[in-house]
């Protein structure tokens, strides 16, 4: 994995809960579609396994974490690895602001979950723009 001055997006790795899935769907949208040139997806599993390249990348780039529950594994793991968390998101906090988008489903989100992931992705996009100084270009 190469991460040359990109914002690391680190979603929850929790399997079996809709909020974890929302975090990953949002992360895919940001890293594959919205801000593909400026971001890089970092799987939590690589950090847990101690992958040196991933740890080094986090040491040199800001990270945006997306946690699926209060355990906040993504945020804690990045900090544990010596990374700098520029912004942490919690899916539950986003849902509290968008109650109409109740996430359900695990392998496949319902419409509410997909919409929640979209609004979360937009908020992450803004943070990425601030970190890369490209707010004007992507607005």
């Amino acid at each position, binding site marked *: 994995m190469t991460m040359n001055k990109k914002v690391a997006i680190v979603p929850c790795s929790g399997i079996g*809960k*809709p*909020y974890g899935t929302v975090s990953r769907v949002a992360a895919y949208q940001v890293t594959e579609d919205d801000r593909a040139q400026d971001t890089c997806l970092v799987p939590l599993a690589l950090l847990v396994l101690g992958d040196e390249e991933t740890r080094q990348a986090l040491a040199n780039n800001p990270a945006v974490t997306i946690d699926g*529950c*209060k355990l906040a594994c993504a945020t804690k793991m990045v900090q544990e690895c010596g990374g700098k968390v520029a912004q942490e998101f919690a899916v*539950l906090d986003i*849902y*509290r602001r968008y*109650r109409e988008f109740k996430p359900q489903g695990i392998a496949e989100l319902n419409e509410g979950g997909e919409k929640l992931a979209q609004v979360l992705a937009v908020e992450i996009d803004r943070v990425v723009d601030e970190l890369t100084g490209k707010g004007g270009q992507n607005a």
Partner: protein
Amino acid sequence: MPDYLETTVDKFLFRVATDRSYNAVGIWAKADGNLIRIGLSDYLQQRSGDIAFVEVKPSGSVLAAEDEVASIETIKVNISLPCPVAGKIVRVNPEMETAPEKINQDPFGEGWLCEIEASDWERDQAGLMDAPAYFARMKQEAEEEAKKL
């Protein structure tokens, strides 16, 4: 600060405050004269998961024991909470609207739900469990749940 009974089941630590009574669901009731403050036990909040929303019946509501006093939506479930005491709600914790996570963070303290002016506290208290009785029930339930994992 209340004293607690504590037990660890699997990887989870559960506490039961000793200075209050409990119904079977795990709603606690703590009396100050005729004013009864109620909330969720530590076990109930942990089992329910992170709380997204709480809707407590408004002040002035008159409830019988076992009537729904609040409903909560967590990341796992929606739950209706039965009132452990009959009476009139005189105060709702304002934090429930803006910071329902207080229930998860401090279930026996800042995460209280509401205060009720009891119509007959002695009668209702007789139907509730004291802390040791609830602790034994909760521990058994938690151990049974752990076996399912």
